């Protein structure tokens, strides 16, 4: 790595030499496969939803697989897009699967403790809480 940096230093243009620290850091990151863009840090191969990773200054990140040894805290959860093979949890604690929205889901559980299974036309099975329902 040290030799590489010497090579990089030797190849700096006059303009780059004026900002030696900045370009030195950029080239070092590039050597590691990391690209610095405007208000973001990303892997050299980053392509949204396809490959690589990106950390944006606004706090958004995109990675591929991940392992968290501790807990995860989030406002909402959306897995599998927004189609009939997706799973969601909203900020109120309602969860549903099989549709983009709670109202259209064939399976959902409310934060009041009601689980509903819909047959495609009607809510057919109810397990749990329904005020006055039992």
């Amino acid at each position, binding site marked *: 790595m040290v030799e590489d940096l010497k090579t990089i230093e030797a190849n700096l243009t006059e303009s780059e030499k004026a900002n030696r620290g900045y370009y030195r850091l950029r080239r070092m990151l590039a050597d590691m496969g990391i690209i610095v863009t405007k208000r973001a840090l990303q892997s050299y191969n980053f392509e949204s939803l396809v490959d690589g990773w990106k950390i944006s200054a606004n706090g958004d990140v995109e990675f591929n697989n991940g392992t968290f040894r501790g807990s995860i805290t989030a406002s909402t959860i959306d897995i599998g897009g927004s189609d009939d093979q997706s799973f969601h949890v909203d900020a109120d604690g309602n969860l549903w699967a099989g549709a983009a929205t709670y109202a259209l889901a064939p399976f959902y559980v409310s934060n009041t*403790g009601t689980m*509903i299974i819909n*047959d495609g*036309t*009607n*809510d*057919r*099975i*109810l*397990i*749990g*809480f*329904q*005020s*006055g*329902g*039992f």
Partner: protein
Amino acid sequence: MADYGIKIAKEGYDVNTAADKDLVYSSKFNGMKIAEHNTSGAGTVLHSLGYAPMFLNYRKSGTQYRLDWQTTSFVNAPYTTNAGIVFPNADNYYFIFIDKAE
């Protein structure tokens, strides 16, 4: 806990709003639970429920299975006790329920 349970609507009905008659199941209503069912000759089938349970008995008569109704004379009719079901006659097809007789 009256607001908690399980219910299933008939096809074409919304379980959230369906009347009780339009449900195929509701935990609102007690369902008889079968402790055991089997065949028996004349005699006593013991159970370990510790109380006199409900029971239902068919008796085979040729190719027919007939409900063994209690008669007004109480003669030769099966009955339930804390220990078992007593069958005075043979060819019984019985169900013993978890639910108490009274």
